[in-house]
């Protein structure tokens, strides 16, 4: 599978998916840089991997469970809320989501 170079529109579409707003200069730079990086990793396309499965996890652990009980992590809600940009009534305040 030979990939084409990333166009300006491709970059803008990716930026939208990633919730990034790029300047015109960034769009231009990224289309060149990302194309070069993607071309580099394209060497993987020609590797013979017949009979092999993907690796997701390397140290052999499977489904690590904990007891389904209450855990005290040692900090209070207000300590977590201290880092929140905007709060109201001990809740995180965000802009309206649905019209």
């Amino acid at each position: 599978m030979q990939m084409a170079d990333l166009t300006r529109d491709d970059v803008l579409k990716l930026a939208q998916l990633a919730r990034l707003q790029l300047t015109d200069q960034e769009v231009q730079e990224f289309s060149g840089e990302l194309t070069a990086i993607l071309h580099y990793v394209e060497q993987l396309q020609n590797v013979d991997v017949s009979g092999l499965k993907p690796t997701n996890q390397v140290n052999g652990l499977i489904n690590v469970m904990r007891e389904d009980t209450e855990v005290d992590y040692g900090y209070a809600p207000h300590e977590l809320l201290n880092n929140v940009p905007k709060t109201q009534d001990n809740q995180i305040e965000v802009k309206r989501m649905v019209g």
Partner: protein
Amino acid sequence: MSIADLAAEVRAGKTKAADLVEKSLQAIKDKAEYNAIIVTLDDAARARAAAVDKDPKGRLAGVPFIAKDNFLVFGAETTAASNILKGFTAPYQSTAIEKLEAEGAICVAKANLDAFAHGSSTENSDFFTTLNPHDKTKVPGGSSGGSAAAVMLDLAPFALGSDTGGSIRLPASFCGAVGLKPTYGLVSRSGVVAMASSTDVIGPLTRTVEDAALVLDVMAGQDPLDSTTIERQEDYTVQPTPLKGKKVGIITEYMADGLQPGVRAQIDKAIQTLKDQGAEITEVSLPTLPLGLAVYYVLCPAEVSSNLSRYDGQRYGFTSGGAKDLDASFKESRSIGFGKEAKRRIMIGTYVLSSGYYDAYYKKAQIVRTKLINEFKAAFKEHDFLLGPTCATTAFAVGANADDPLQMYLTDIMTVAVNLAGIPAISIPAGVSSDDQMPVGLQLMAAQKHDKELLDFAAALETELQK
């Protein structure tokens, strides 16, 4: 003096923790021009020193250390050297810090890094570039460049780093420090800012293998807060071991063309030392190794794009005030808060995970990863350890790779495979290159969960190399 001896002096009351902390804080001030440190924890460190001096105990009693600024630590901001986390105050501490403190160690400062640990030089820090302790025109390597520089500038006896694709070993190599990347899962990552979760590990940067082993011994083990952690071996502290009879494989692909002559000469010297000591040296080829970087630069950005999606400007970190709606608030906060390399990796990761490209890039990379792991497993059937340089070059000049991200990525070509396989590796100093008088790093690897054997072997070789 070793860290163990220093702690013993504190326990015996011969040395005061308070004096050690003051010495560290003063050294940080005196060496400020190297930009190794983002913030000092003066008050917290002094308070802890006073407590230690009242009741000096623990295997690291009174020993100051410096944490890479992607560790959550009480007493200062945790920024991961990024603008988007400026002002973030940790509500809890990383498990590694908790364990070190439980043995009496004292965190005195947070070290600079490439923002979110994305980089090989610290030039991607959103704040400033750390300079190499041996030559201020050179980079210290990255991403744990501040930690490596801090150790070699004597700002503290040890520092913590994180290693996702080489970020402990590369700066250790460039600065002449010891840098240990443990087996994946051996040290809890709870409370460390996530980069690429399938390869992230944390470990120590020190002046000697003995010190690195002691710090690992304190930090290693299962943690309910990190479900990827594995059972530890009983004891990681270094025991004397003969080099004679050890089967060491020299990695053909890492000794190929492209090594700087001065680097090759130092690695060859180390190999000769092993031969002289009676180690059994053979060449070993892992044909998929040169593809490791391509695998890494698919999987790592994919995981980065996922892990960095939590920085949305709503719950913590930087938020853009004037956005008209929620979507605009996400976009503006992330666009202003993230630096260029974070954006670049988020974009690549988004691409390789997007519909239509997932199988061709992400899944294919995961399968080639399996191929690489199989080659490592085969190599460790025949060899106790594998050996090669940590990097093909010594430290490069500040700015040398600034305009070419792909060239910067290539710096990691000899370190990433270890992360993909989850095996332990260590970079130890192998003298200086005759090309530029800069430090050369020797990389040693072992099979998964053979960290103890690796440390004993590295310590024995380190002793011989210093003779």
